[in-house]
């Protein structure tokens, strides 16, 4: 059961990798990396249950947090070209 889930997740990772490779636009690729991080979270959970030791579930939660923060950082970088203190642009100045 969990083995099938793990294999399915690996196949999904491969498909995400294909989208990363082909992805015509930048947003396809950013989304693919985000999905890849989600697969990582799920895979850690499934591996825990597969090995009969679901102690690492909280670690997969941490991965979810890292994934979220990383995606925010990438998108913020797209938008503002800077990470720290973003200078406030006047409205309509795009």
């Amino acid at each position, binding site marked *: 059961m969990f083995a099938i889930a793990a294999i399915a997740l690996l196949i999904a990772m491969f498909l995400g*990798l294909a989208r*990363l490779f082909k992805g015509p636009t930048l947003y396809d690729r950013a989304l693919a990396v985000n999905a890849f991080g989600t697969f990582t979270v799920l895979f850690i959970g499934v591996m825990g249950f597969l090995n009969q030791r679901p102690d*690492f579930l909280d*670690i997969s939660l941490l*991965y979810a947090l890292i994934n979220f923060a*990383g995606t925010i950082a990438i998108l913020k*970088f797209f938008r503002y070209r800077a990470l720290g203190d973003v*200078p406030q642009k006047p409205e309509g100045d795009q």
Partner: protein
Amino acid sequence: MEILINILLFAIMVACAMAIAKIRHLFAVVMLSGAFSLLAALLFVTLDAVDVAFTEAAVGAGISTVLMLGTIALTVRREKPSYRSSFVPLLVVILTGAVLVYGTLDMPNFGDPNAVVHQHVGPEYIERIPKEVDVPNFVTAILASYRGFDTLGEVAVVFTAGIGVVLLLSGLGAKARRPKILAQNSDNNEASS
């Protein structure tokens, strides 16, 4: 089952590495290297080295992706095609890999309880930790209890580094420049109004 999963993970990693070598669009390369780090972290998790995996995910997929994006923003977005022969680099890589594989020949089998490293202080810790610390993970018990001062020092170092990074990213230099820009803006506004 575990062997199959490891083989599949390695296959995806190899595919990822070949894609990184093939693509010239540098943004895609950065995203792919983030995915590569996540795969490496998954391999560490299957090897039960969760702390190493977490460091790999935080540094490889988190920080270095952002740093590489910053580099791309400062330079160019496409890699120039290389016309030089890749024979010598390939040879160097193959030789290094062969030396590494040769180095593993002397190592004990993975998870062998009779290996030398498991005979030194390991049994003592395994005996003492359930009585003295009572934390399910022995690595956590050793890091946080037996070597607590060491970890405290590490935390101080990481905290100092974090303060430095926050100071750099918060743009002290930009703040020093900003009054000038603001003054120019207000001049423009006055001129336009």
